[in-house]
Structure formats: C-alpha cells, structure tokens
C-alpha cells in the first residue's frame, strides 16, 4: 500500500503543470461555477458546519496542494460533474453530503488542517489526499442512489466536530470503501440472481396456484429476496475491500485521465455543444466559429480564418508553458505557411526535437511521464491551430512510444540524446528516405512517350517526375489543378524550370483531357486499411475518371502515412477550410456576386479539404516497401507497426 501510495504523491504535482491554459478567466469562472453549485446544497443540508465548508472545500485543496493546482483546476471539472450528477438525484442533499463527507469531516474540526494531517497519518495510509477524494466523489456520484451509506454520513456531519474527528475516522474510512463497493453492489451477480430466482419462484408459485394471483405475491417475493440479498453484501464486501482499495488506487491517478481529457480528441464531434464549450475553455487559440455550416459537416470544426493570428502573436511572450518552437509551428499551420503532409510532419517533429533539447525534468518527476504529458499538451495546441493529419498522428504516436520505451536507467542527457536521434531517424528514414525509395520504384513505371497526369502538388510525384527527367525519359506532364489553392501552379513552375513539357488545366476539363493520358500519379494524405486513399479534395474525381478511361492510377504514399482505420466516405472525418476562400476570387473584383451574402442564413459554404478514393479506382500504391496493390495495405500496416514497437 505504502509503496503504491508514494508514487502517486509524486505524480500529483505533474498534473498542475499540464495544460497550457494560462488565462485565468476560464478557471475562475469554473471555480465560480463550482461555488455556485456547491453553495445551495450545503444550505439545503442546513447544518452549520457544512455551510462553512463550501469555501473551505475549496481552500482545502491548497492544504495538500500548492496554489497552481487551483488554477489548473484538474479536479474541479470532475467535482462539478459529480455535483451535477448527484444533484440530479432527488434526495440530493444526502448523497451530496455523503460525497463530501471526507473533507467535511476533517475540516469541521476547527484546527482543521492540522487535524486533517494527523488524521491522514493515523487512521490509515489508504486515506488519500485530494485525488482520492476526487475519486471518491466520482464513485459517490455514481452510487448516489444508494441510500444506506448516505444516511451514515449524515450522522457524521451532524456529529460535534471534536468527536467526529476520531469517531468518524474509521467510519469515513469504511464509507469510502463502501461507496465504490456499494455501487458495484448494485449490479452484483448475487443480487441479480436473487431477483431472478424470486421471479422464477413467483412463476412457479403462479403455476402452482393455477395462475390465480401472481402479481402481488411475486412482488412480495421479490422484495423479500432483495432483503435477503442485502445481508449478503457485507460478506462480499470484506472480500472485495482490498480490491476496491486497489481500484481506487488505480483510479486515484486522476491526473492521467484528466490530462487525456484535456487534449481535444483528434476527431472530436463539433456538433456536440457541451464538448465544444469545454474544449473552448481550454483553448489557447480563440477561433471564432463560422455561422452557417453545412448540415452534414457540423461535426467538423469550422472557423473564421484570419482573425486570431494577431491575437496569438501578441500572446507569444505570455504563453509560458508553450515551447516557442511549437508555438511557431502552430502559427505557421494556422496561417497556412506550412502545408502538405510531409512538410507539416517534419516541421512538427523538428519542433519536438527542440522541445526535447530544451527539456529538463522537473524535480520529483519522471522523465517518461512528464515528457509525454508535455508532448500531449503541445499536440493539443497544434490541433487547435489546424486539425492533425493522419501522418502527424502516426508520427506523434511514434514519438510517444519512444518516450515510453526509454529505459529508466538512462540519465536525462542520454535519454534526451536518444530521443532526438530517434526523431531524426524517423524524419530521415520514414519520410525523406521513403520518398527516395518511392521515386526509385515509380521511375521504373515511366516509359518513353508517356503522358503523365498529376493533380495538385504532391511532393513525392514531383520528385518522381524530376528524377525521370534526369534519367532522360521522354514524357509529357499534365498538371491538373483546382481552386482555391491552385497548388498545381507551383508544381508547374518548378517542372517547367527543369525543361519538362507540361500542360496545365483545371479539374473541370478532366474528362476531356483524360483520353490522352497513359498514367495518373497521385499523392495521398493517408492510405487507410481498406485501401481507401484519403487525399486532397478532387483526387477521387481524378481517380474515378481515370479508371473510367482505363488509365492506371498510381498512388505514391510513404508507409508512415498508412493507418489501420477504415473509412467509407469523406464525411465522417475531414477538414473544413476557410469558406471565404471559395466565396471570393482574389484579384477579380468584378466577380462579387456573393458580396454581402456571407452571413445569409440560407447560404452555406462548404470548403472541404480532403476526400476518400475507394480502392477500386486505384491500380497500385507505391510505398517505401515497394509497389503493392491496395488490398495489401493492412499487411504493411501490420508489419510496419510491429517494427514501430520493436525498433
């Protein structure tokens, strides 16, 4: 027990530094909320000591935990949730006071803090510090419908403080154990079985009676059986006490869980309002949401672009916990200075390298865990700037995996060096090296006289074309482009500079131009397990037209972008771009038909960033593991991830 307890005390402080929300406003508001929620209930409980508790409940935590804790408000959402849940139950005051019994009992003693300390020491090592309470409150919230324990705690509260101190010591203790217990008890097999048996017995009785008066009797039987079941509780409890303690132990590390909650889920559903509100409270980047959103895509974040950049730039020096390198990359994502899967991924990894370089383990902390937490917080910042691509997700997974796998015996400098070289290796092997291999493979498919079509500006395809040109292959390139990004023009510029014969057209003309094409080379943001290619919007269109014309479609994609997810359409996971980009045409002031209509409720703009191409339209995927059919993606994902874990 002791040994388990100690590490947690060490873990606790880590929580406080997690989360990069420096602005105190959301926190104070949340604490206010907290108070609002806590206040009325003690009032209803109407016991004098309790009314003093609500402030003390908040001031209590500083006893064990230094002030920053309050601001980071790790346990508060939890409590708030618990309070909400318990107040929803009709006999709320009971369950509520029950939930709070631990701090109450200790603080009612006038010299509260000292006594509390002694109480913790003397009564049991199990009695936890605040995290334990958080846990307890959670359990209580769940078990709020169990009246028995609630009653006992009321008695505790009403007891005179001095007495309560010692007398309740054990009782509270037992309560604490009982609560998680009793919530389990609710669903124990014994009880359910008892009910079942009762029903069966009732049925049998009904049969025996010839179906005379079943309802009443069965009810009574059931009730008795439940009563019978209740005495059975203690016996099971005893057995499970240790287990329950173990459970609280595990749950007691609320920090980990909370931190995970901190970062918005990469695929958060943005039509879930409560979550959006929560995420916003934590967010550094204050994005203003676009008003009119297309019905099908409400689950995706859509923001008015260009408003938040200056604001963030001014914050640059205020954001203490954010590493400047990460911050810079985030801003570059936001402004669109870095785009393209590989470029974004490399920029992020290099920022992480900087982070690792400047990192020093805070005292009393574990490098593995603290670093993971840090990376997580940076990632959530990056997500706020722009949703992660799948390739970045894979890279982050790699980095975290490496951190977790660092041998504990390494010194800090060694660990940092190992980590930096790991990231370096990832960039070199999995991204840059992979591109080289892809180029080597793909060039074998280019023959003299070919007409190659490409869409957008995929970096891998550009390298392939340039290399094939260096090999003196005679081919022509058709660059297909689309609004609003017109990335193809950049590619076109670079190809022409090398003397490659090119044709430039927009995607509208794809069906006209396709008949002269011999091969289509496409890039991909990701390739999913079912062979679906997730790529720049418009790719699916190109691939479908090509396959209708029986032109082979070759997708070039590094294996680190493969993902085991399966996706059937481009709706459930996508990214929405700036609506203004499609509503306005830059440099064409005469096209102003939509001026003044952007806020019209009847008008919704949909600027999708990605689409999903079904594997039927793809002839071949060229990766760093060679040329494979789309059906073999899962094999590569499997092998690749195995490697991930082993290396």
């Amino acid at each position: 027990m002791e040994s388990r307890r100690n590490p947690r005390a060490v873990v606790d402080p880590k929580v406080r530094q997690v989360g990069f929300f420096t602005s105190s406003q959301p926190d104070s508001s949340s604490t206010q909320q907290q108070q609002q929620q806590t206040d009325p209930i003690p009032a209803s409980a109407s016991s004098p000591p309790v009314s003093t508790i609500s402030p003390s409940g908040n001031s209590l935590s500083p006893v064990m935990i230094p002030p920053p804790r309050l601001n980071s408000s790790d346990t508060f959402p939890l409590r708030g949730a618990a309070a909400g849940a318990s107040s929803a139950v009709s006999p709320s005051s009971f369950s509520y006071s029950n939930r709070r019994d631990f701090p109450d009992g200790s603080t009612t003693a006038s010299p509260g803090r000292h006594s509390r300390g002694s109480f913790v020491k003397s009564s049991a090592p199990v009695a936890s510090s605040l995290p334990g309470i958080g846990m307890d409150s959670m359990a209580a919230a769940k078990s709020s419908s169990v009246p028995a324990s609630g009653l006992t705690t009321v008695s505790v509260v009403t007891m005179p403080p001095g007495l309560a101190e010692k007398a309740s010591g054990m009782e509270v203790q037992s309560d604490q154990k009982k609560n998680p217990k009793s919530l389990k008890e609710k669903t124990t097999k014994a009880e359910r079985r008892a009910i079942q048996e009762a029903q069966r017995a009732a049925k049998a009785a009904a049969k025996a009676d010839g179906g005379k008066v079943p309802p009443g009797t069965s009810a009574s039987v059931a009730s008795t059986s439940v009563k019978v079941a209740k005495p059975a509780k203690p016996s099971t409890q005893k057995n499970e006490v240790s287990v329950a303690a173990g459970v609280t132990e595990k749950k007691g590390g609320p920090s980990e869980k909370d931190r995970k909650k901190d970062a918005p889920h990469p695929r958060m559903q943005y039509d879930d309002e409560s979550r959006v509100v929560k995420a916003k409270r934590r967010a550094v980047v204050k994005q203003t949401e676009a008003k009119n959103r297309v019905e099908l895509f409400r689950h995706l974040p859509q923001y008015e672009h260009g408003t938040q950049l200056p604001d963030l730039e001014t914050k640059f020096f205020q954001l203490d916990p954010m590493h400047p390198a990460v911050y810079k990359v985030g801003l570059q994502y936001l402004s669109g200075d870095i785009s393209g899967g590989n470029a974004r991924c490399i920029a992020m990894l290099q920022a992480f390298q900087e982070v690792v370089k400047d990192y020093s383990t805070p005292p009393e902390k574990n490098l593995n865990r603290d670093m993971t937490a840090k990376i997580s917080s940076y990632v959530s910042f990056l997500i706020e700037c722009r949703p992660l691509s799948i390739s970045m997700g894979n890279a982050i997974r790699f980095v975290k995996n490496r951190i977790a796998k660092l041998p504990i015996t390494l010194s800090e400098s060694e660990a940092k060096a190992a980590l930096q070289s790991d990231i370096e290796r990832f960039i070199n092997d999995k991204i840059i090296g992979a591109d080289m291999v892809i180029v080597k493979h793909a060039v074998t498919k280019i023959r003299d006289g070919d007409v190659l079509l490409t869409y957008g500006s995929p970096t891998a395809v550009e390298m392939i074309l340039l290399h094939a040109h260096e090999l003196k292959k005679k081919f022509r390139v058709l660059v297909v482009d689309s609004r609003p990004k017109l990335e193809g023009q950049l590619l076109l510029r670079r190809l022409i500079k090398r003397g490659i014969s090119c044709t430039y057209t927009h995607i509208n003309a794809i069906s006209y131009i396709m008949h002269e094409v011999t091969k289509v080379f496409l890039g991909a943001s990701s390739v999913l397990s079912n062979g679906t290619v997730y790529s720049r919007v418009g790719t699916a269109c190109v691939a479908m037209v090509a396959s209708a014309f029986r032109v082979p479609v070759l997708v070039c994609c590094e294996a680190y972008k493969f993902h085991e997810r399966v996706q059937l359409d481009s709706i459930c996971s996508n990214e929405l771009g700036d609506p203004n980009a499609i509503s306005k045409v830059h440099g064409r002031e005469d096209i102003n038909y939509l001026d003044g209509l952007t806020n019209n409720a009847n008008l919704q703009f949909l600027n999708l960033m990605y689409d999903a191409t079904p594997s039927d339209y793809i002839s071949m995927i060229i990766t760093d593991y060679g040329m494979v059919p789309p059906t073999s993606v899962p094999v590569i994902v499997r092998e690749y991830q195995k490697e991930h874990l082993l290396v």
Partner: protein
Amino acid sequence: MWRSSASFILDKHLNNKPISITHSIDSPPPPSASMADENPNPNPISAYYETRAAHHGIVTSEWLEQAQAAVQRYPDRENSVSPVSGSPFSVIEEFNSWRQQPDLAEAVAAIRALAAVIRASEATTMMELEIELKKASDTLKAWDTTSISLTAGCDLFMRYVTRTSALEFEDFNSAKSRVLGRAEKFGEISCKARRVIAILSQDFIFDGCTILVHGFSRVVFEILKTSAQNKKLFRVLCTEGRPDKTGVLLAKELAKLDIPVKLLIDSAVAYSMDEVDMVFVGADGVVESGGIINMMGTYQIALVAHSMNKPVYVAAESYKFARLYPLDQKDLEPALRPNDFNVPVPPKVEVERSARDYTPPQYLTLLFTDLGVLTPSVVSDELIQLYL
C-alpha cells in the same frame, strides 16, 4: 512463406499413391540440346518458350513411365549428381543439365543448379559464399530475362537460403551445411509443389463438370490426371493453343487417360463458354497484384469467363511468385516467339509475336498454390512477408 506450405497433404496421400513425382536423372537426351550452348541468348526468341516447346515434344505418358522406372531402378543416383570439382564449375551448364529433364520446371532446375553451386563452392567465409551465390543467380537470370519463373525462383532461393540469423553464430562449415540443407529442402518443396496443388484442387472438381483449359500446363495436367485417378467424371474442353498447338498435345494426353476431351479453336472460347463450369489455367508467373502472366489468350478467356460468371482457377507453384507489378499488357518484358500462320505473311504486314499476356487479378477467382488455395490479393501479402 514455406513454413506454411501445404505439403503435409502429400504425406497424407502418400500411402494411397506410392508413385508421386518423378524428377528423374536418367533423362533421355532432349532433341534440342544445341540451344544450351547459346549462353547470352542473342536471338530475340524467348528461351523460356523454346524450352517449353522442347519439353512438350517428349512429355508423353510412355516417357514418364520410363522415367519412373528409371528412378526406381537407381534411387540413389540423385545424390551422386553433384559435379566433380576440378573442371571450372559453370552454373549454366549445371542448369542446362537439370533443365533437360522435361518434368522439371525451369525454376526448379535453377534451384537445383544453385544448390549445386553451394556444394561446389570453395569459399571459406559466409560472405564469399553469398557473393558467389549472388553471382551465379545473376548469371542465371541474365541467361533468360524473359522467364519469370526463373527469375522468381532464383530470387526466392536467395531469400530462403540466406535469410537466417542463425548463420552468423556458427563456424563456416556447419553454416554451409545448414545453407545446403535449406537449399535441398527448398528444392524438395518445389518438386513436391505440383503434387500438392493437384491434391488441393480436388475439392473443386465435381462430378459432371465441364472444365475449360488453355495451353499445356503441367500443373493443370497433374490436376486433371489426379481427378481421373480419383474416379471423377468430368469433361474437358481444350483450346487449340496456337501457335505451338499445346492444346492439341494436352488433348492427346487426356484422351490417353480416358477423359472425354473436346478440342476448340482459340476463337471458339466465348461460343462454348456457356457449357463450361470452370476454367483452369496454369501460369508462367504470378505477379504482385495477384494477376498472372500466362500464355497468350489467357486474358481473353478470363474476360469471357468473368462476364459469364464462371470461376477462373489458376494453378501455379509458389516459386512462380514474382516481384513484378505490370500495370497493363505492354508493361512487361516482351517474350517473343515465332508465329506460324501456315500461309505466307503478306509483305508490309506486321505480326504480333508476343507469347504471353497479363491477366489482372479481378478476373481470377482463386489460385491453387502449394501454399494453399489463395485469393489473388494474398499473393502480395505472401510476397511482402517474404521480401520485407
């Protein structure tokens, strides 16, 4: 890959059929022994198809019986073939001597030749041996670039033999013997492959079915022969197999086994497809997409069968799995072959002389291999697992 070989089936069946495979040593000299000399293979005619033609000339049931008898008479001769060192060892010669056995596939011949290289090697370190082996396999591959199974067989042999980490911790002699053991085992498996496939495919041939076959594939012949021996009642439609009339040859062999056979001209495939229950073809090579490269005409048969919802089964040994990925028909190393039209070709008329075509995987139903019965997409999985 070979760990999962389905060759255990053979052991089960061995009791029933004592005489299974015949890789004989005492082969009668083949009629076209002269072509063995042309090492760099200057003429554009595919050596692979010449060998096939030569073999077809003599693979008859009488000959097979003789060969079997010969093997039974000298069961221990096989081990004594290892060449006597002294004269400079040549892989090509070794390969040719193996290749002359009509029942031995080209890849198996290559595998045996490479095993002989190891045996004859005077290398003193593992690295030397590996380099020597690599050189030999490169020579073999260069000897006939049009043969997919030769290339694939050499590559697979190299992977199979050299990919073992245990080699680094042993002294050279034991390592060499281990490599040799693996090489022998690989040759063994390859030899058994045809038998395994024949047994695996029996579940798919039902009484009263009509089977369309194309070309003379030794594996398909083995399958049909086994079915006939299992007293299955079925009918076979043979395409003519222009230009070398391989279909006629197969029809003759099948007729000898009392299987009802009907001969079609190649262009009558669509006409008779509605009475066909399944299509059986062999393969020169199985490519990474799961498609096959086979004798000219396979693609159109597969297309017709697919459009009429008839299953197309491919029988191919796993040593034909090649790391190739053709995107279309022209995306292949051309294998040319003389075309005999029986009439003088008018001047200024071009003649298509390609000997094979590529059938994409979506037109194939199943592949019968010695690794088991596979769907086309599994081919790539096996290849990835082997080469990565």
